[in-house]
């Protein structure tokens, strides 16, 4: 009897770490698996609940393809611009030293700005660069330059500028640890073997940082591709990007009865993000031998 108790206790002890995962698995199940399954299933359902490929076919329409292309342009360009400028800023921060004020201030500000999106961000840009924005008015009165330019802020170009506002600080946050990981010994060993500063960067630092840089850029891509709130506030006419088209499909009275098209568009976004994640996995596989 006592041995049965003992073995039961041992089993419980062995299962304890797995029990700790239960809340997490529940969360993932409710908020990731169920919505994903719903999106996939509903994408293949008609308004009457029957099985159909109409929603998937609708993804090939010119409007849907143009919107997808805009989304990819927006996510891709802000990932590249944010990645490049963020990496440069991260390098400046790391060069200033581990205890420098520049580092402390930049990281603290980046932590806030990387999460600064949605209505406040859109309003900030409208108040600055909108038709009656502070900067627009100031430059209009002197030196007489019109930066309003027909309202570019409220289209794709405007979204690119506004998204960079949170993409650059996000890049700083994720890339500083990679730069911190560059060991002084690698630089000194390279210099000792005859490398100039340029050769060190070309042959050592850049190859070492490339996986982290590309990984960060892919993260930025996914971040911008899925962003919704800022664009929803800034863009009041048309649906230049996929998240806004999904909103229209789900809520528009004009497109009434096309809610399931919204699910198909969401499925399209999942596929794009899955492609991005696959690229990242391939990248990691290439470097896994030396990145241990």
């Amino acid at each position, binding site marked *: 009897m006592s041995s049965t108790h003992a073995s039961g206790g041992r089993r419980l002890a062995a299962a304890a770490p797995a029990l700790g995962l239960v809340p997490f698995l529940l969360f993932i199940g409710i908020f990731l698996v169920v919505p994903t399954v719903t999106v996939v299933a509903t994408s293949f359902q008609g308004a009457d609940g029957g099985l159909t490929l109409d929603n998937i076919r609708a993804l090939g329409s010119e409007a849907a393809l143009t919107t997808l292309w805009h989304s990819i342009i927006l996510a891709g360009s802000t990932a590249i611009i944010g990645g490049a400028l963020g990496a440069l800023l991260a390098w400046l921060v790391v060069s200033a030293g581990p205890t420098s004020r520049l580092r402390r201030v930049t990281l603290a500000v980046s932590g806030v700005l990387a999460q600064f999106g949605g209505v406040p961000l859109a309003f900030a840009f409208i108040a600055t660069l909108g038709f009656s924005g502070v900067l627009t008015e100031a430059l209009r009165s002197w030196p007489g330059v019109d930066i309003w330019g027909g309202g570019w802020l409220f289209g794709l170009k405007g979204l690119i500028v506004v998204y960079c506002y949170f993409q650059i600080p996000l890049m700083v946050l994720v890339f500083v640890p990679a730069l911190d990981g560059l*060991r002084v*010994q*690698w630089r000194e060993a*390279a210099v000792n*073997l*005859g490398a100039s500063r340029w050769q060190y960067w070309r*042959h050592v630092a850049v190859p070492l940082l490339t996986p982290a840089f590309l990984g960060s850029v892919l993260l930025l891509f996914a971040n911008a591709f899925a962003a919704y709130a800022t664009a929803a506030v800034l863009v009041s006419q048309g649906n230049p990007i996929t998240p806004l088209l999904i909103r229209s499909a789900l809520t528009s009275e004009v497109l009434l009865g096309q809610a399931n098209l919204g699910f198909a568009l969401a499925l399209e976004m999942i596929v794009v993000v899955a492609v991005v994640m696959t690229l990242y996995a391939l990248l990691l596989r290439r470097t896994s031998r030396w990145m241990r």
Partner: protein
Amino acid sequence: MTTAAPDTSTERGVAVHLQDLTRTYGATRALDGLDLSIEPGELVALLGPSGCGKTTALRILAGLDVATSGQVLVGGRDLTRVPANKRDMGMVFQAYSLFPHLTVADNVAFGLRLRRTSTSARRARALEMLELVGLGQHASRYAAELSGGQQQRVALARALAIEPSVLLLDEPLSALDAKVRVQLRDEIRRIQLEVGTTTLFVTHDQEEALAVADRVGVMNAGRLEQIAPPVDLYERPATPFVAEFVGLHNKVAATVSGGTATVLGASVPVIDGSITSGAGVAMVRPESVSVSASPTGTASVVSVGFLGPISRVHVQTEAGDALMAQLPSALAVGLAPQDRVDVSIAGTPVLVVAG
């Protein structure tokens, strides 16, 4: 005190002179007028406690640090203001200096790649160097796939591949476990003798320094206290600091007269640097002290430490001196705390300093 070396270059290495090197960091003086000469093909070890300036000296020679004043001469050329990447020196760091994204062979060939050596030539040279350090079969591995000892071997091969004028070893064994450390230490010496490159080896481990070097320089507070062949340094320390740092020492009351010291009742010769007369303190090595069990002995055993082939016996004399004797374990068998023992010292010369 330094030993001068001739300023000549030979086929097997170049002469190195560090002249009156000073390095200050704010109010801290890391180097304080260091003079060091290394003969062509010689391996000199710089030994000293943390913060004594030995690594600073090596880094200034490598060009990774800049002297506040003084000169660096290599093969008769003044390199004081020459950048590190133009100095043609090979360096092995403490650890973790291999480029992780390159294979072992590409690491070794890195310096040759910068020198635009052809792919086939640098591949051949890399394999030759890897054979030299016994890692020919690991050419296509990455650093993460090697043990610490293997990584340091690769680092040595990489440093030697460029045929440097000077080889610099910055505590290359300190991150390794004891057994690998001894193996690699002997291997470094074998390879250095084979290639004949002038070498500066920095370490805080006296056994390591004594085992590999042609001469050992003991540093203290940014200066060279003494530089001499290992045996001379061990047997004839020039200063109390050297005597204490190199090997363990007993400090015993002594009286000096006419070049002879009376220590524990025995007469022993004194070495250069000792006081010439009067009372002082003799630095007596543990291996010069003998103890033997005797019911009428003048000392008692405090403790016995067994270290395998040797044992260390701590005794207390009736006069109040605490002594440590180091003797073959076979002679220490049977000794236990509280045992009465006779204590005597060998007739080897001792350093006697003012008390």
